[in-house]
């Protein structure tokens, strides 16, 4: 590679590099600095350790992981048949179904979450229906189930797309061959579809897990003050209590926990081979 092209390439990238350098890398570094040195005198992990050993944050962290994990598992289970069905239908139906699954991703998370708020709230649509037929109103908002339901709905499209991409690639001839060799349909799915779709399952699961674990608007609207998650606590500390160092510390913990889990899962799944999960 000659130096002229290298220079041309770097020149093209320079504006973006300068921008991200000043407005992304420096701020993130500054935030790290604030968490490691809240008073500006010497660096230590004291604040991070305080956050990690606080029973309240421990509960919130465990809840964040639990909710994200359940959301991910439910998403995989309910999206898988949809992705399978996409193989079976013609191109017109295929794009119609995909549009239904994916286009909600392009409306605001706030709007999609509010739709669940008006359905589930104390005097919401569902409770109006319950009382209409003589049932007592049920408490459906500000419980963990509501947050999980909302997160599944909000991030579902990513799961379908990830599964579909890998299931679509499976060679139809494999099924014909398996059928010729006498494999039942169940066995074909178990031994062809399932193993070959695992990369898609992994991509979708990691994506939904990461997005759920760092979600703010959905847990805050559907979980209220009772069902808080780590991203909500970052906001509470930063904006409500104006405690930026502690907010920074929580967000670092959040980031490290997510990164560690993603690293571990990809390590295990790829047998030590790292792979970029964001397409």
């Amino acid at each position, binding site marked *: *590679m000659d130096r002229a092209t290298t220079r041309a390439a770097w020149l093209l990238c320079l504006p*973006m590099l300068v921008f991200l350098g000043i407005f992304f890398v420096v701020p*993130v570094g500054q935030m790290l600095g604030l968490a490691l040195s809240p008073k500006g005198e010497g660096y230590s992990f004291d604040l991070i350790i305080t956050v990690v050993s606080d029973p309240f944050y421990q509960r919130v962290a465990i809840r964040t992981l639990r909710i994200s994990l359940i959301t991910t598992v439910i998403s995989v289970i309910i999206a898988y048949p*949809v992705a399978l069905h996409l193989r079976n239908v013609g191109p017109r139906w295929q794009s119609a179904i995909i*549009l239904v699954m994916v286009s909600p991703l392009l409306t*605001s998370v706030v709007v999609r979450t509010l739709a669940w708020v008006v359905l589930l709230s104390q005097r919401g*649509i569902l409770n109006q229906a319950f009382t209409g037929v003589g049932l007592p109103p049920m408490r459906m908002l500000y419980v963990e189930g509501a947050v999980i339901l909302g997160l599944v709905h909000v991030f579902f499209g990513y799961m379908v797309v990830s599964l579909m991409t890998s299931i679509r690639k499976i060679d139809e001839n494999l099924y014909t061959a398996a059928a010729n060799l006498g494999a039942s349909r169940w066995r074909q799915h178990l031994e062809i579809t399932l193993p070959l779709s695992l990369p898609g399952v992994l991509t979708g699961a990691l994506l939904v897990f990461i997005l759920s674990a*760092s979600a703010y608007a959905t847990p805050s609207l559907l979980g209220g003050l009772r069902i808080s998650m780590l991203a909500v606590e970052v906001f509470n500390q930063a904006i409500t209590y104006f405690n930026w160092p502690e907010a920074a510390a929580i*967000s670092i913990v*959040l980031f490290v926990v997510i990164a560690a889990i993603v690293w571990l899962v990809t390590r295990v799944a790829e047998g030590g081979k790292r792979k970029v999960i964001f397409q």
Partner: protein
Amino acid sequence: MIPNAERLILGAWTALICVFMLGPLVVMFAISVTASGYISLPYEGISLRWYHDMLRQTVFIDAAINSVVLALQATAISVVLGTATAIAVTRYRFPGRGIILMLAGAPLFVPLVMTGLAILIFFSAIGIGGPAERLLVAHICLTLPYIVRMVSVSLAGFDWNQEAAALNLGASRLRAFVEVTLPQILPGVIAGAAFAFIISFDDVGISIFLTGAAYKTLPVELYAFAAFDLTPMIAAVSVAMILFSAAFVLLIERLFGVQKVLAGEVGTKNPAA
């Protein structure tokens, strides 16, 4: 051969999930046209009173204008910065390319609340710029990864010899780019820009840290309003936002197909790819 039973069961399940996906949005639409004074389906008749109410709420109108202006500015800057980078990384293999790609994607790997908080801290430390400026900066960070990725993918099949040919025929670098390269990569750039616009317009995770009392974006205003008071008006605002996004979804769908954009397959239609 796909057994009929399988086709039937999977089809029924898919229909069920379609209802799950769209149902809440349909309910939102029904609530927005209720004649009642509280959140309910339009049992007592249909009325546009909540849309009328919405249009009289200056906070929502102001927030909507803020959001559109912000999204336009962020998209414009992101498209310029991102397209230049996308051209460099698809056309050349050079030392440092990996680092550049990593940095361009970095804002996607960091939780939104972290980016929001970091930019809040940064602007307070330098002491200049209000909510409008810090939101613009944040939204450029937010949209850049998408632009770089989508334009890169649409460039993947482009034959750079065409630009070289134009240069050999005496065109200036600018003219070769504007008349040869740009028209061919334009669909990718437009789809990327439309996507970036929606991402910016809809964002709440970063924006909630950066808005001010006098300068809010529409999703943040809606969020704040709904946390305080649930009236059918929030359904009207939601429907307005859904329709607005839908216009962009249709644009992207016409240009590429939404699922291709989200799956990062833009450009594979190109026979050269």
